[in-house]
């Protein structure tokens, strides 16, 4: 297994770790972090594939895509954190309400 492929596999594993946490973790901060980890996994796949397809040096296009992706991730993290804070202020909980609770 070549090194770029190893990194790509690592990226896929990160993606699924994040996915698992997104479903299992209850605290909203952890959920936002889980989405971040999923994003990092995808970016790692992109970057490792840049090394594999490039001839005479890595392919710059995936790097540009990852930079754009990071901007998107920063924005959704900010939005998620603001929402989490607002939910805590409004309901006193830092998790999504369960069925039957107020606001469910």
């Amino acid at each position: 297994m070549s090194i770029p492929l190893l990194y790509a596999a690592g990226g896929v594993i990160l993606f699924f770790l994040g996915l698992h946490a997104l479903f299992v973790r209850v605290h909203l901060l952890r959920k936002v972090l889980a989405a971040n980890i999923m994003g990092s996994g995808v970016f790692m796949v992109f970057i490792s594939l840049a090394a594999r397809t490039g001839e005479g040096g890595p392919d710059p296009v995936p790097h540009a895509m990852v930079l754009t992706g990071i901007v998107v991730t920063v924005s959704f993290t900010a939005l998620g954190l603001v929402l989490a804070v607002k939910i805590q202020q409004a309901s006193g909980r830092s998790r999504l309400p369960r069925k039957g609770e107020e606001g469910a």
Partner: protein
Amino acid sequence: MNQLLAQPWSVWAILLPLGMASLAFLLPRQAVRLGLASAFAIPLLVAGAVLQVRTLGVVEHVVGGWPAPLGIGLRTDGLAAALLAATAVVGLVISLYAWGYFPSAASGNSKTRYFWPLWLFLWGACNALFVSRDLFNLYVTLELVTMVAVALITLAGGTAALTAAMRYLLSGLLGSLAYLLGVALLYGAHGTVDIPLLGALLNDGDLSRAALALMVSGLLLKTALFPLHFWLPPAHSMAPAPVSALLSALVIKTSYVILLRLWFEVFPAVTTSGMAHLLGSLGAAAILWGSFMALRQERLKLLVAYSTVAQIGYLFLVFPLAQGETAVTAWAGAVFFVLAHAGGKAAMFLMAGTIQQTAGHDRIAQLAGAGGPLGVQVVVFAMAGLTIIGLPPSAGFMAKWMLFNAAIVTGQWWYLLVMAAGSLLAAAYVVRVLAWAFLSVDHRAYPNMPWVMKWPPLALSVVALLLGLAAYEPVLLSLTATPAAGVLLQGVVP
């Protein structure tokens, strides 16, 4: 005339709302004026783009003069033009309605202050999504749409709206990251994200299938196809009425358009009829489950939201119905369904909002007798419902007619049964509201609403109702450079 036609109209239709959104954010006191001015200007720009597509065919624009694969290409084909037009019409009506719905900006109200910049951002992002021709740009625009939509839901305030927004954000993120991982796999294998190039390069294999599975399941979550619809009813019903309307009419269509493009333009070499039937059966289940749930709702806005869950189901029947000769009929039917639903559902949500604002609540059972003072509102609501039910001559009827035709020609009668059952259930839930409202007529005094909260939705429902009679033009437009092959309505050459 020729010089006018050569203008990149669809690019202006992206830049104008984005620019105006930034201005509206910086000048909150002028937000309403800027918003309304853009709402009237964008349809004109879109009309230019539509005219261009009708006369010249597909219009390509290379942003900044950088050609593919490095640059970003924009491509206005028939599908893009049809959706730009639908968004322009629905957007204008929603803008007028919002002008009356949100208190005036001069009072320093934060809802008004943030609604206009966010809505213009959303409009620009939708327009950009429709004309994007590469998978990565589609990802960026899709994320823009989701984030702005989440922010718009929170305008309602309160714990319920915040939680609905959070659920929507998290499921949206999950969907778009799965989609992005698929894009990464495709780029790694083929070194491009350009849709036409990929369509030519792709062949069947494990990697293509993995990418297809990731991208399609991510987009199914974003489109809220049964059983991934859990986030939709709270998000769409908790939002302020104009926001509900644009979420249901426009936002869920964005991820559906990407799905259509993936299925017909990127992956035709990979998709099998088994996959198509899987999507079709999920669609059929959505129609039955969504309609059944709509029938059981006690609140008007939740009823309309569940009706959206059901209507999304019809959109997915295109995949099994588009086989061989019927591909073009099913394609045209699905695109026309998107247009019909955009008009009908926006009008329904807007009227539900007017009824809620006037009566002070939206509990269906307590609307008994509201038919007297709220007669106009309830009747407009039902008129918008006609296209959702699919009664002739509404746009919904024509769309279903095309899907029916494809189902008959391909001999898939079970989809016919589901569509018929869906129409009956839709009729039942619309009539249920009417029946409650006109159960008895009381003469309670209700506050009077501004005219923009009644007449623009009425106009929109009339447009949706009569669009079925003028279906030829939009169908022809949507077929410009369509990737679907075959004969429209079996024997009728377009």
